[in-house]
């Protein structure tokens, strides 16, 4: 029912930390992260109908420290609940890029794995992990609240042990993801977020961050430079 997606990208070389307490601090932060997950309130598909039961009185996700949040800025986990139509996928990518890292994507329902029963539909994207780095799939049509919660517990476990940093993969293999996005949305595809700049700024630059697809992007895009204060 729950399946880990193996992390394909090679880990970027982390700077060695000499402070002996750094390790303890990392453990603490990982623990806090695992115990406090804000999930984005975005019903992308029909699996969202099983989230209210999971959130509310009967299954109560708040006891695991999970609570719904409204905007992507506040959220840590993006639950893609079910099939993603192409129109929605654009919004999901926008939303994902607006979220602050560490961020986690959970694909709920079979449709996110391979298109599910809509495999021949012209309107839905088939494999979510082509467009976004997925941390965890919870398969089923649709998975029960118990399955959702057990999947979330698995994610919590992964975060606690520092194993769930697929979000770095998005920066490190941005070219790959962007290529798939361009394939589906056309060559003019651009989001307001400057992912390459972010990767550069946070030291998440990987060998596959840049490539032919990002070149294409840079040839068409009007980059949105932040409004710097000018005297």
């Amino acid at each position: 029912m729950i399946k880990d997606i193996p992390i394909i990208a090679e880990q970027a070389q982390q700077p060695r930390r000499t402070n002996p307490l750094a390790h303890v601090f990392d453990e603490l932060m990982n623990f806090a992260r695992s115990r406090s997950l804000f999930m984005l309130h975005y019903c992308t598909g029909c699996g969202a109908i099983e989230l209210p039961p999971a959130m509310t009185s009967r299954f109560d996700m708040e006891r695991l420290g999970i609570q719904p949040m409204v905007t992507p800025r506040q959220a840590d986990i993006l639950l893609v609940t079910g099939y993603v139509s192409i129109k929605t996928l654009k919004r999901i990518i926008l939303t994902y890029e607006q979220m602050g890292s560490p961020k986690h994507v959970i694909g709920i329902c079979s449709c996110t794995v391979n298109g599910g029963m809509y495999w021949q539909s012209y309107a839905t994207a088939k494999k979510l992990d082509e467009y976004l780095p997925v941390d965890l799939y919870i398969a089923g049509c649709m998975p029960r609240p118990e399955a959702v919660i057990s999947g979330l517990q698995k994610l919590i476990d992964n975060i606690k042990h520092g194993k769930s940093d697929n979000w770095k993969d998005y920066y490190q293999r941005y070219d790959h993801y962007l290529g798939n996005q361009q394939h589906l949305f056309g060559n003019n595809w651009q989001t307001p977020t400057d992912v390459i700049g972010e990767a550069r700024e946070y030291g998440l630059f990987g060998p596959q961050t840049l490539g032919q697809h990002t070149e294409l992007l840079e040839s068409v895009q009007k980059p949105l430079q932040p409004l710097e204060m000018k005297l």
Partner: protein
Amino acid sequence: MTPLDYLLLLSLLTVVIALVAGHRSMGGVWLTFTYAAQLGGLMLMAGLTNQPDVITSSLSFTILGQSLTWRYDALSWYFALITISAGLLSTMYTAGDWGEKFRADGGNLWLLHVAIALNVLSMLILLGSGDLLTLFIGWELVSWASFLLMILAGGPSIQAAIRYITYAMGGAMAILAGLALIYGHTDSFTYPAAANILHSLSTAHLWAPLLLLTLGFGVKMALLPLHLWQAAAYAHTPGPGAAFLGAISSRMGLYALIVVLIQLVGLVRVIELPVLFSFISARDVLAWVAAFTIIFPTFTALRQNDARMLLAWHGIGQGGYMLLGLVMGDALGSAGGLMHVFNHATYQAALFFSVAAVVYRTGTADLNRLGGLVARMPLSFLAMLVGIIGLAGLPPMNGFVSKWLVYRSLMLEGEPLLFVAAVVGTLGTILSVYKLIHNMFLGQLRVEHENIREAPWSMTAPMLILSVVVFVTGLMPGLVLQWIAGIQATVGLPVIDYSLGGLDSAQGSLDMLWVVGVLFAGFGIGAVLFYSGGRTHRVHQLDNYAGGHFLSADIRYHYSDNFYPGLMRLIGPLYRYSFAWLESAVQSGLGLLSLSTQGFYRRVAPANYALVTAVLVLLWVML
């Protein structure tokens, strides 16, 4: 030659320079220096604030057997300081690029310089008035000088200025009538004689001159039913002129009221003076007029969509705090009221300067056509931020201290309703100033403003100087309070027991040094907490939450119009009915009055007119 003579001569010299060189490109700079010289001249008299002393001018006339004298005391000095500083900074602001653009846009820069210089001169003369007649002469000079400043921009300002002069003439008539009444009793215009006779007058007889004088001076002060002229007149005056007017002009009314109410009648008498057939005293009436002057204009400001109009309406509202504090009559209240004159002048000028800078760059002060300018005009934003915190009366700026003194006094005097009224005014101010700064500087930057730059230094320097003053006098209110204490000693009010950081008192003291210190320490800790978090990166404003949609450049998503809709659904009808009714009532009443006044002027020579009025009123008093 006394220092006062030097001062007045310097001021006259300024006018002359303005007349001669006002149209030159360097004229503004020269004028700035002469204003600085005036300030220097004033500083020669700084000793006035320490002891209740008077510096007389050697200039004096004798007309119709009445000698006209001019003299300065601590009160005059304090107001003169604000006047000259306002003139100095306004001219400095005008002297640079602003003036160039003003001229290029077809404005008459020469006239603007002359008008400001004339205003300063006339105000200095008014502030030096040594008797009732010079008070009236100074008053008339100030009225006409302000009129000149208001009208010079042409266009919509002409109507506003004419409205002003109508009100002012009505007020002048009332003053003249009041003076005539007093003269009828004393045969003399000197203050001591007037004070003597006013002390001895019976209640009913005292009411007539008091009412006439308060009404007359209240026009300039823009007390509640007589306030309708002010906002439009100030707002339509070109940039620095508006700052000058907003800072000091209407405070001349307060000065005259202080002279009449406190120096001549005596506040004790006002407090005791009952309103006929009722249980309230004259002070209550004045206090409530002040309270309504706080509330109504403030909430009118809330509805304005033009930045200058909004500020001008606030100028009226803040006048209410000054009067409210003064008529409380105790050390704290009067200190608060007097200090608010200085505080208001500083932040109001800074705000007007900032708005003028925005208008200079964008060409509009319409709050619905601006937004997001903080990224482009950060210094103007800073000045406005400091200014609005002062205007709203929040710590750590100076507006907080003066308002605190007024609140404290209202608490000690046991005036819960007035206290609530004052707080309502402050809250209304907070609401409207947030609207001001939000609609201009925060929110979405309009695409046509993407490439504008900060205003030049000649414009930002005056506002930054003022911002520093606003902050420093907020941090160390004792600097201003020492002048206030001098005034209180001079005019016979209880003297405030101040310290550098505020005041010490058994029933609750205020130490701004501590408050500001702790506040900034708090900010410091907040900053440490903040910067100990992860790194941030800046994003463009189109990278924004829009319900999951992509924002594009052609979408206007800046929330500006009808900024407080929930509140307006509740109190909006009040604006439509009460305010409109009040405005039309006052307008038609004053229209009638001004028409009749106009008739008098046309048919009767002014000198005779005064005589006739005096006779009529005397008859009424005798009967």
